[in-house]
């Protein structure tokens, strides 16, 4: 099976360059990248005017299976992923049961194989049941296929437990992904603390709830030497802490979601529960700091924190609605519209933050478009415009605050291992 992607602009996220090239794929592997490749008999995909990028990786999604199949399944999540241009996702362990055992990790991988769409890299629980008390069997999880450890959504409150967990994970060479939130400072808040929360009468979550934990975990990364990845950074204060830690050589990386670089807490006006997310949408100064951090390299990765919920769960009072929004199918459009067209980062850097950078955090052999690598390829049409219509989502989740928003720069083809898994 030979496929020739012809006439596109190939993005090299490592060199940071763009060049018009053809890409030849044979038996699921990229065999040649260059100008004017002649491949008689190969199926030709015309890519003129489009960007041909290494397959995008979303290192922070919730696939909800096992246990919450009404929200999403591995299959529907993978369908959403490939429609969104992602050839791989890393899924968080807050399923039911929690992915704290070999059995659950294997189950998720089995379901992903059955789906046969995006590659799925499970993240194992850092503590048993994500209870924040006893360490999970991390070596077992690693053997079963877990690529990182996290108690996402239920951050480890006890610093002593966190220290030991990071020591143990460090021993195994697994990164710890930390959802930084001090539960006592968050104290039942539902949105960013500030003027909007005050006006709306909703309980606020101060930026300090995140920053205190970012500071703690950076200090523990220094103590233990464990690689630390800060999930969904949302405040200017967190950005400062990470920037300073990196300068000191602490092994820390960080990610930002499209909603945190696009929206402020003003979006909560009107009490639309699709804006309820954790960490919450923050203030203008925070969004500005995050954009600056995306540009200067303080932030390494763009990840969605795709968190589908059912309409029944979201169609309630703001206080009662669960946190989370879907993100897989709007991420590329938001990155292109807000960051690339907005002049914040270059196209090559945008691609790097969704390919080689997450691959490097997770220790994956992925994110490159070069002879010999698996043919995981995403084709993006930078001129294609479309309004977000949640009814067209492949995800089961419809909980997006971006409904009706015009996005420009969208994925048009997704290939995993040489197989076209999505094409519009």
């Amino acid at each position, binding site marked *: 099976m030979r496929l020739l992607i012809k006439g596109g602009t190939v993005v090299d996220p490592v060199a940071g360059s763009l060049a018009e090239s053809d890409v030849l794929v044979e038996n699921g592997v990229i065999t040649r990248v260059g100008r004017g490749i002649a491949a008689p008999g190969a199926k030709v995909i015309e890519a003129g005017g489009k960007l041909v990028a290494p397959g995008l990786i979303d290192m922070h999604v919730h696939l909800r299976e096992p246990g919450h199949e009404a929200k999403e399944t591995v299959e529907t999540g993978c369908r959403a992923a490939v429609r969104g241009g992602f050839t791989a996702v890393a899924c968080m362990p807050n399923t039911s049961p929690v992915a704290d055992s070999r059995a659950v990790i294997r189950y998720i991988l089995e379901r992903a194989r059955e789906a046969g769409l995006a590659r799925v890299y499970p993240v194992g629980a850092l503590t048993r049941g994500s209870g924040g008390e006893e360490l999970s069997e991390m070596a077992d999880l690693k053997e079963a296929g877990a690529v990182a450890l996290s108690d996402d959504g239920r951050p480890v409150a006890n610093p002593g437990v966190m220290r030991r967990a990071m020591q143990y994970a460090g021993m195994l060479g697994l990164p710890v992904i930390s959802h930084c939130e001090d539960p006592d400072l968050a104290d039942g808040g539902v949105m960013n603390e*500030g*003027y909007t929360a*005050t*006006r*709306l*009468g*909703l309980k606020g979550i101060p930026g300090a709830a995140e920053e205190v934990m970012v500071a703690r975990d950076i200090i523990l990364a220094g103590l233990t030497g464990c690689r630390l990845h800060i999930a969904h950074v949302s405040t200017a204060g967190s950005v400062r802490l990470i920037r300073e830690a990196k300068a000191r050589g602490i092994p820390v990386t960080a990610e930002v979601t499209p909603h945190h670089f696009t929206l402020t807490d003003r979006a909560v006006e009107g*009490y639309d529960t699709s804006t309820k997310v954790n960490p919450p949408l923050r203030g203008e100064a925070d969004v500005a700091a995050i954009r600056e951090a995306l540009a200067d390299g303080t932030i390494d990765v763009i990840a969605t924190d795709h968190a589908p919920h059912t309409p029944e769960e979201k169609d*309630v*009072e703001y206080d009662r609605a669960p946190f989370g929004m879907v993100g897989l199918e709007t991420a590329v459009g938001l990155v292109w519209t807000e960051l690339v067209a907005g002049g914040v980062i270059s196209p090559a850097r945008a691609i790097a933050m969704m390919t080689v950078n997450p691959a490097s955090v997770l220790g994956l052999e992925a994110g490159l478009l070069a002879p010999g690598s698996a043919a995981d390829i995403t084709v993006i049409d930078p001129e294609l415009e479309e309004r977000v219509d949640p009814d067209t989502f492949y995800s089961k989740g419809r909980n997006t605050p971006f409904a009706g928003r015009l996005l420009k720069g969208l994925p048009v083809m997704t290939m995993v291992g040489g197989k076209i898994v999505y094409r519009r």
Partner: protein
Amino acid sequence: MARMKKDLLGLEGAGEREINQILDMAASMKEIMGRQIKKVPTLRGKTVVNMFYEPSTRTRTSFELAAKYLSADAVNISSSTSSAVKGESLKDTAATIAALGADVVVLRHPMAGAPHLLAGTIKPAVINAGDGAHEHPTQALLDLFTVREKKGRISGLQVAIVGDITHSRVARSDIWGFTAMGASVRLCGPATLIPAEIERTGARCCTRMEDALEGADVVIMLRIQLERQRQGLFPGIREYGRLYGLNRERLALAARDALVMHPGPVNRGVEISHDVADGVQSVINEQVTNGVAVRMALLYLLAGGGAVEAAD
């Protein structure tokens, strides 16, 4: 007369003209309340449903009487008797009530934004009777009515609001209402009970009660809930009363003819002393009476009844 919006969800963004229209109408309603037979057929055939998801005596009774004085049919639903206890969502309960034929739904709910959820889904007019810590617009309107009636004006007055500002929907609605009418608002309470960036509303903030009272024309005292002590937001009732209780000595700092108001229910001896609560400057009971008039005006304006004059 300017047309009313479909719902009354809050006073944020309300203009002087709109508020005056309601207050003028409330004055006509108060006149009806003063008659021998205080009932007019204006809203005959209209149905008002009071959905109260929080305990309430005065607001619920006030709405119920307001509806009855206008000859509307009034039905009360409380959270314990509603299908909420069977797990029905607020939206579904509201849709059912709309389908049963309600013209106005009055909602009291412990969560901010609940009336917005209703207003966006059902056809009947929705009146916010207090949603979490967000707004309580009818309380603010009755406060405005009371002040206008007593002082002859609102513009230019110094209004002090003292107590737990963070959890007070009354404070928020009063800030918007009094500010829109040209008064200056000062907020006062312990730092732990003043919400973030509240000064961006245009109100001034202080933590010393003496600063708030100095020359004030209106003093609105808020109820302090003991629950906030358990949440670690203030050390206790004793010190609270010492720092923020309104007594005769403190009241002397305010203008000589300052009005003392309270949305009720009052914690006597805590936020307000007996002699002040029952003193000549207190208009707490008149607030309650005016509340009925204001709610009659709102029901009339939102349910689209016939001319009030036709009632005679």
